[in-house]
């Protein structure tokens, strides 16, 4: 239970800090310092358990997502203990420091929240006992790092630095996810304890190499290894406490932590040795070299961090066991001296207002105390004896000599290490000399002075550690190092001694050479360095990255624009291509086009009707630019379709088609009035008149392809036998459905639910049309497209009178069609369209005013009521214990009248009738009454 508490305490602190906010500032300090301190104490209290026996690990586990193998599993062994100690210890100091660094306002609260959240996430990374959980925390550190780097969000460099860091480390995290999934796939579990025990299996697995590369990708991005190191210097846009904490002591160490964590399973192959060590070596040298060329104080420290991370990586990659111990030792030392250096740099920045090494000079006179602290830490960084950095550097030099990776070129590694040591010495001197000595400074805030007392306490504390570890390493970090190394190697530790003095040996010589070389380089070649510095100044990784991002965005925009050109014909063409080509591809497997059913003899009437239909359709295409003409021909097609329906035994369809056709024509003629004459638009749209050959070909291929596909499918199916469920409907129509017209019984009974849905579609269409027409104003053409004026007579007498006369007659026909629908062709839908047409004829013949003065029902309400009626009919059956829409019918014998059949389906059909009538009238009459006198139009809206 202690392990989750370790993570929970900083989280709790963050939550409390957020709640407290700026309201009770006095409570803030106890929360943000007290709770993490409690976590630290808790961690230290576990020391005994962890260190008690070699290889022992504390564990805690709760299932989270077992399906994925992701458990909330925590594990505290020596390695985790070391890192947790760094995270909590340095974290505490950084928070102390930051309290003085930041102004106390709301954004400071946000800062501490983020910092504490980061602390929790980082603890999660080091304590994770499940690799997927580790990935979770790993990405969380990336996200929080992004937020912290961009904390001063009004600064462009902060925003850009943050984005760059997120892109690189977040991308690495994705690689880690893949790598971890592969590792889990190989091992059959993501539990660290299981995975770590399967080194042999992992290393002989064919997926080992991809997995290794993915994991290393994550390591290298997070730890800013070459060539992914460019983001780290730009992360320095963050407030200095963040740099001290995330970008020196903890987050960048997550990468090397992972190297250590997975060392037992990954180490031991040549891929590991070469990939890790060579990357580390390159980073070591490049980082050190670039550190020397920085003008920005924090930039120098950032490149120094890169270089030291390279050193650690290199150590992990060397093929000796002791090198790993050295790596862990250097992790500790680097965290301590680099954190203190960053804090010192922050103090300098804070007090002088600049971090420019060209402007900073001679500060030792103004802030002697800070100068001493910074100099000690720098010397440690340079690997000067008496300080902790020296010890791990000696071990490093020793191991470069002991390894045997490169065969006859083995000397390259020690030589390069010595050279890197010299560069390290040089930039450390640059830091010391450049900042604290050499004349009067030229500063924005002049004269600088010492910072508040407690801002220096964390630095002092760290510097003391540098000294103490440097002097008596075995008594201070011996146990910790041993425990961590043991957990990493999972084998008996190699012999090593933590002493300041090992006698005169080759590593010492390398140290001396590198220190002398570094001093020489700095003091003799300062002018050359300055020229170099100017030369690389314009090589800004940030700018290049931004350029690359811009280029990526431009590319993305170009692709998007190319695909989404805003042109419906293009979209339709894509869609048709997919919907025709793929089915056609699979249809090509059809061995025989015709099936076993003999194609029936040709029926002359059917054939003639089909031929006329096809002719009309082709004619529509031919004349489609003359709109009215095309409409007339389309109407001809509709008529032919209804004849085809009639011929092929579908009278209900024919009736429906005839009625729908009339309403559709009314609708389209209404629309035609407003459409601009074709001739007006031609100039604007050359492509329309003169489609390019390619486009013409495309359209032809799609049209003919679509036609062929449907024809082939239709023919192939029609000539095959099938066994339809419809025989049931024919059998049951009369006894079960109470109607002779099977199609109608299907519509109102067997499949009445479809009909209910269908009238809902209609009602919604009506609502949608009404909504669309609200506020729509269309210009009224004052003359016909050919320039002839309209006639003055709006409502010719003959039409007006006959429209009125037709109404009662047509209503009777509608009643007839409605009532007989259940037994003969007809039904509510057709009756509704007949009624609608009769009423619309009044609008056409007598005008809106005349008609609505006489018939002014709320069509929309009728339509809604129709659905309610149909729905209630369906619900009625529930009362009798039957499912929704169960129909009931009965034959009643009325004296003197005879048999009368009543069926609930007829009420349902009446509902259909109401909805269809209401909707049709809503749609057409509302479209028709667009151009009204303003007063009437206002009512309408």
């Amino acid at each position, binding site marked *: 239970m202690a392990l989750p508490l370790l993570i929970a305490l900083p989280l709790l602190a963050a939550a409390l800090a957020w709640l407290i906010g700026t309201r009770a500032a006095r409570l803030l300090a106890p929360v943000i310092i007290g709770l993490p301190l409690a976590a630290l104490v808790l961690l230290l209290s576990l020391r005994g358990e962890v260190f008690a026996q070699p290889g022992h690990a504390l564990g805690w586990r709760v299932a989270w997502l077992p399906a994925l193998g992701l458990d909330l599993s925590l594990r505290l062994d020596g390695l985790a203990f070391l890192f947790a100690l760094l995270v909590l210890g340095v974290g505490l100091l950084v928070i102390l420091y930051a309290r003085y660094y930041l102004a106390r306002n709301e954004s400071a609260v946000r800062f501490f929240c983020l910092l504490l959240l980061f602390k929790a996430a980082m603890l999660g990374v080091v304590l994770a006992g499940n690799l997927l959980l580790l990935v979770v925390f790993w990405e969380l550190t990336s996200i929080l790092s992004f937020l912290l780097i961009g904390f001063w969000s009004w600064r462009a460099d902060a925003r850009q630095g943050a984005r760059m860091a997120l892109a690189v480390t977040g991308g690495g995290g994705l690689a880690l996810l893949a790598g971890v999934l592969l590792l889990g796939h190989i091992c059959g579990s993501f539990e660290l304890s299981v995975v770590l025990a399967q080194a042999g299996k992992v290393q002989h697995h064919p997926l080992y190499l991809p997995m290794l590369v993915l994991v290393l990708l994550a390591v290298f991005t997070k730890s800013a290894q070459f060539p992914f190191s460019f983001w780290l210097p730009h992360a320095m846009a963050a407030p200095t406490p963040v740099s001290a904490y995330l970008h020196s002591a903890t987050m960048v160490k997550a990468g090397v932590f992972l190297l250590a964590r997975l060392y037992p399973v990954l180490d031991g192959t040549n891929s590991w040795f070469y990939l890790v060590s060579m990357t580390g070596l390159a980073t070591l040298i490049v980082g050190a070299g670039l550190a020397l060329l920085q003008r920005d104080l924090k930039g120098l420290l950032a490149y120094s961090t890169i270089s030291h991370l390279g050193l650690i990586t290199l150590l992990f990659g060397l093929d000796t066991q002791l090198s790993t111990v050295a790596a862990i030792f250097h992790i500790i030392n680097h965290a301590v001296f680099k954190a203190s250096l960053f804090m010192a740099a922050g103090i300098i920045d804070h007090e002088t207002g600049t971090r420019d090494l060209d402007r900073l000079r001679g500060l030792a006179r103004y802030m002697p105390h800070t100068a001493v602290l910074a100099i000690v830490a720098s010397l440690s960084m340079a690997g000067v004896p008496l300080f902790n950095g020296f010890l791990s550097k000696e071990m490093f030099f020793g191991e470069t000599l002991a390894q045997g990776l490169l065969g006859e070129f083995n000397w390259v590694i020690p030589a390069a290490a010595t050279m890197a040591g010299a560069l390290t010495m040089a930039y450390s001197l640059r830091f010391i000399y450049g900042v604290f000595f050499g004349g009067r400074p030229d500063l924005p805030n002049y004269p600088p002075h010492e910072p508040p007392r407690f801002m220096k306490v964390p630095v002092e504390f760290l510097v003391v550690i540098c000294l103490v570890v440097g002097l008596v390493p075995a008594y201070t970090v011996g146990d910790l190092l041993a425990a961590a190394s043991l957990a990493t190697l999972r084998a008996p530790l190699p012999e090593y001694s933590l002493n300041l003095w090992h006698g005169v040996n080759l590593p010492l010589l390398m140290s001396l050479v590198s220190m002398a070389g570094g001093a020489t380089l700095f003091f003799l070649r300062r002018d050359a360095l300055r020229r170099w510095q100017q030369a690389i100044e314009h090589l800004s990784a940030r700018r290049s990255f931004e350029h690359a991002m811009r280029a990526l965005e431009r590319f993305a925009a170009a692709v998007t624009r190319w695909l989404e050109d805003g042109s419906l014909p293009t979209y339709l063409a894509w869609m048709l291509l997919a919907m025709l080509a793929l089915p056609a591809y699979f249809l090509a497997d059809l061995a025989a086009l015709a099936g076993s059913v003999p194609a029936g003899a040709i029926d002359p009437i059917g054939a003639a009707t089909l031929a006329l239909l096809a002719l009309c359709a082709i004619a529509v295409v031919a004349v489609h630019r003359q709109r009215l003409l095309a409409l007339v021909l389309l109407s001809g097609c509709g008529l032919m379709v209804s004849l085809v329906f009639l011929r092929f035994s579908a009278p209900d369809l024919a009736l429906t088609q005839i009625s729908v056709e009339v309403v559709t024509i009314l609708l389209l003629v209404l629309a035609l009035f407003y459409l601009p004459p074709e001739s007006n638009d031609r100039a604007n749209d050359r492509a329309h008149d003169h489609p390019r050959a390619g486009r013409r070909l495309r359209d032809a291929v799609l049209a003919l392809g679509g036609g062929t596909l449907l024809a082939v499918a239709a023919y192939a199916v029609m000539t095959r036998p099938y066994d339809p469920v419809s025989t049931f409907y024919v059998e049951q129509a009369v006894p079960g459905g109470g109607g002779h017209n099977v199609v109608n019984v299907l519509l109102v009974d067997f499949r009445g639910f479809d009909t209910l849905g269908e009238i809902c579609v209609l009602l919604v269409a009506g609502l949608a049309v009404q909504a669309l027409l609200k506020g729509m104003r269309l210009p009224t053409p004052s003359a016909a497209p050919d320039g002839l004026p309209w006639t003055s007579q709006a409502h010719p007498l003959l039409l007006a009178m006959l429209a009125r006369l037709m109404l*009662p007659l047509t209503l009777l026909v509608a009643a007839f069609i409605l009532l007989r629908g259940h037994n003969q062709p007809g039904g509510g839908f057709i009756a509704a369209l007949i009624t609608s047409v009769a009423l619309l004829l009044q609008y056409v013949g007598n005008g809106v005013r005349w008609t609505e003065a006489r018939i002014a029902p709320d069509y929309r309400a009728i339509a809604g009521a129709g659905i309610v009626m149909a729905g209630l009919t369906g619900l009625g059956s529930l009362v009798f214990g039957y499912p929704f829409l169960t129909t009931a019918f009965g034959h009643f014998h009325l004296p003197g*009248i005879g048999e009368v059949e009543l069926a609930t389906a007829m009420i349902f059909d009446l509902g259909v009738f109401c909805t269809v009538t209401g909707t049709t009238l809503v749609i057409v009459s509302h479209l028709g009454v667009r151009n009204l006198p303003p007063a009437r139009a206002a009512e309408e809206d």
Partner: protein
Amino acid sequence: MLRRLLPHPWLSLILMLMWLMLVQSVALGHWLLGAALGWAIGRLADRWLVLGAFRLSRPDLILRLSCHVLIDIVKANLEVAVMVLGRTARLRPAFIVVPLDVEHELATTALISIVSLSPGTLCAELSDDRRALLVHVLDLEEEAALVALIKSRYETPLKEIFQCLPS
């Protein structure tokens, strides 16, 4: 009272007969249903069907006029058939103007319908004051004779049938 209950007795009757024709049944139930529908639609039509105030009189004239029209249609159909199938160059098409005396809208409507229905003539336009009819004739021998024929054979009976009520 009766007028309000049964505003269009003729119409209701016609509707009932139509109903019987539609359902092809003379069962009592259909008589009743047809009567109900005729009554209901008649009531509805009272609001919707504003035909102007008039009284239909002389049912015998209606019958006679109908017979005339039917006979004329059959007769002229044959003539027109000959014209259509024969040499079209021999046709003598013409526009003629027929002055109108009828005033009632329904009577005018009926006249236009009859003229258009009877073959060889086709009513193309009614003047705005409804006092003249522009008729297209497929093969005109003599204008005056045709005008006279139209007026005597169709317009006069119509005038008698539709007698305007003083409003």
